[in-house]
């Protein structure tokens, strides 16, 4: 897989020279508002180049999903600039994968696990053409990668919760994207699924892909992720986990919520342990 290359430097970079064109995701000065209430303001972020697993962490209502949706063009931004590998999102859609939150899925829909994974290939197939055998095979391989061989023709409601989550991960894989956004991929999954997801994410990183996950569980941030974005309506801190995921930054992000601080303390205590 060849990383996207753009011979022409986008004009915007001259205005903001600190953003390198190779960054998988760079956000400058972004503000997002629902109705009258700003949800995110003055977001500045630049993802490092090369394969990274990045967690977006923050309290409820901090705007974690909103950040992802704004990057994907699903929400209008009040201001700001979002670039994916140096280009606006609408030019880069084919190399951006998305795993939505479980709750947004209609589980009773007449599709099988394989049908769902094939949707990841639709962009590659193009308008009005049927899913060919080649694409179906690619989708089958992705299902195998997440450990679901043999369940291809299962209607999705007849899968367990963890299996459902893995189907959506397989759909993202099938797209062969470079940058992935995942909205709480670990929410409510069983231990086997958690393991399977972590394995897949690490494979992606080794292939040089960038994965950005909204993540809830502070405890395993140091174990699973390389980078962290601490978010609470603004970016409190971002960077490598070792430098950024500190007690001080977590305090700034979560304010004085004691239970969460306990979790953070646990997480910090576990930082030294091998992953």
């Amino acid at each position: 897989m060849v990383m996207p290359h753009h011979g022409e430097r986008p004009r915007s970079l001259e205005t903001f020279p600190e953003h390198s064109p190779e960054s998988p995701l760079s956000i400058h000065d972004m503000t997002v508002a629902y109705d009258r209430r700003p949800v995110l303001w003055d977001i500045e972020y630049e993802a490092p180049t090369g394969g990274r697993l990045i967690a977006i962490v923050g309290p409820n209502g901090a705007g974690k999903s909103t950040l992802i949706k704004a990057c994907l063009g699903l929400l209008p931004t009040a201001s700001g600039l979002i670039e994916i590998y140096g280009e606006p999102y609408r030019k880069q859609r084919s190399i951006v994968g998305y795993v939505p939150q479980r709750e947004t899925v209609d589980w009773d829909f007449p599709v099988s696990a394989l049908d769902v994974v094939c949707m990841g290939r639709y962009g590659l197939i193009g308008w009005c053409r049927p899913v060919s055998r080649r694409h179906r095979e690619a989708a089958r391989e992705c299902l195998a990668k997440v450990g679901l061989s043999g369940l291809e023709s299962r209607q999705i409601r007849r899968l367990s919760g963890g299996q459902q989550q893995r189907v959506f991960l397989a759909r993202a894989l099938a797209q062969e994207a470079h940058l992935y956004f995942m909205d709480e991929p670990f929410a409510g999954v069983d231990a086997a699924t958690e393991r399977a997801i972590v394995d897949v994410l690490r494979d992606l990183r080794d292939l040089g892909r960038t994965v950005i996950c909204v993540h809830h569980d502070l405890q395993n941030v140091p174990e699973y992720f390389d980078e962290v974005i601490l978010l609470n309506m603004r970016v409190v801190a971002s960077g490598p986990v070792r430098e950024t995921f500190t007690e001080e930054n977590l305090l700034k992000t979560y304010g004085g919520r004691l239970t969460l601080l306990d979790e953070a303390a646990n997480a910090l205590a576990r930082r030294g342990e091998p992953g």
Partner: protein
Amino acid sequence: MSAVVAAIASPGAEEIFRILTFRAGYNTSAVIIGAIMLGVAAGAIGVFALLRGRALMGDALSHATLPGVAGGFLLGTWMGFDPRSMPVLLTGATVTGVLGVLTVLFISRHTRLREDAAIGIVLSVFFGAGVVLMQVIARLDIGNRGGLQQFIYGQTAAMQGRDAMVLALLAVLVLLVSLAFLKEFRVVCFNAEYARAQGWPVGVIDIIMMTFVVLVTVVGLQMVGLILVVAMIVIPAAAARFWTDRLFVMLLTAAVLGGFSGYAGGAASAMAGGLPAGAVIVLASGGVFLLSMFFAPARGVVAGVVRTKRVHDRTNRQHLLRMLLEADEVGDAEGLTRTGVRSRRAWPGRSLGRAIRQLRSGGAIDVDPSGGLELTTTGREQAARVTRNHRLWEEYLVRHADIAPSHVDWSADLVEHVLSSEMVRQLEESVAARGGALPPSVHPLTGDPETAQG
């Protein structure tokens, strides 16, 4: 009673046969063929309307056509056209129908009202406007104003071969479009937000879909009437959903069920001369729906009841096997009779008798003359597998209590099929550490758990 039968008319067997085989005259055949074609078109497009959550939208759409029909009539009269010319009336119907849909979309997007409320408002206000305009027309001194009522209740008697041709063309068009855009429609109906994130123009795809809903509705107005036309769109699609879990199959099934309803309804109304075809067609599709709802093998009510019963039976058999094995483990299997089994566990109704009967006929247990239940060799193997599985799942829940039990696949016959071999090993160790016994796995745990499946 006989008066009712007489009023419906009773054709002879020969006449019935002629109607069913399209040989009962030009008009009757045109009506039946037209009804079939409308059923096919509405059934196919209805699948996407239903899955996109737009079933009720069709109702708003059809009711909103009335002011367009009446307005078209008035405007046509004023401009000197023949006011009953179909193109004028149907154009009017399309204009206000689409306006109604757009109003619903506007209200639900820009206010906090939910779509059902928006549909209720638009449907009744537009229909009210239509009724007022109809009244205005009734008071005007225009020579020929008959025929407008047909748009409300539908009227097939005047149907010509040409109309049937138009409907056939529409059916072919809807099928072609449904197949061509199957992939696009599927992803948008399934998860519009994902589709949007992937760069599909969801708005354009929605418009293509709704265009055909509008076309089917407007063309169907004449035949079924605006009150009932939504039934043609919703019912065959909803019935088809009971038969399959595949979108493509559902599409074909809905088209076939819609076509069949049209055929049965059209023919029945021809036999009972004078019954309104639209209403009879809708009744026929209602019958198809009822049959599907109860008797469809995939998702029908009866199949569901049978499945539940089977799961209950299986669970009860497993409980009994496990109980006998555990009694064996502690050495008091001798003389575990029905009474003994009942004293250890509550068995509702005849569930114990059923479990014993089923296990006996499966050769898993024997009943000795004194009523004692004993495991056979086969039964012992089954019991060991069941017990192992249950104990591992229990251990899993204990160790991973943060996982909602609904996310654990209890239905799997063997824990090895769901959890990784490493996980199973960990669970085995932790059962052993707590002093629990565990029957050995029937699958060697060396390989990949996926390949062990079978």
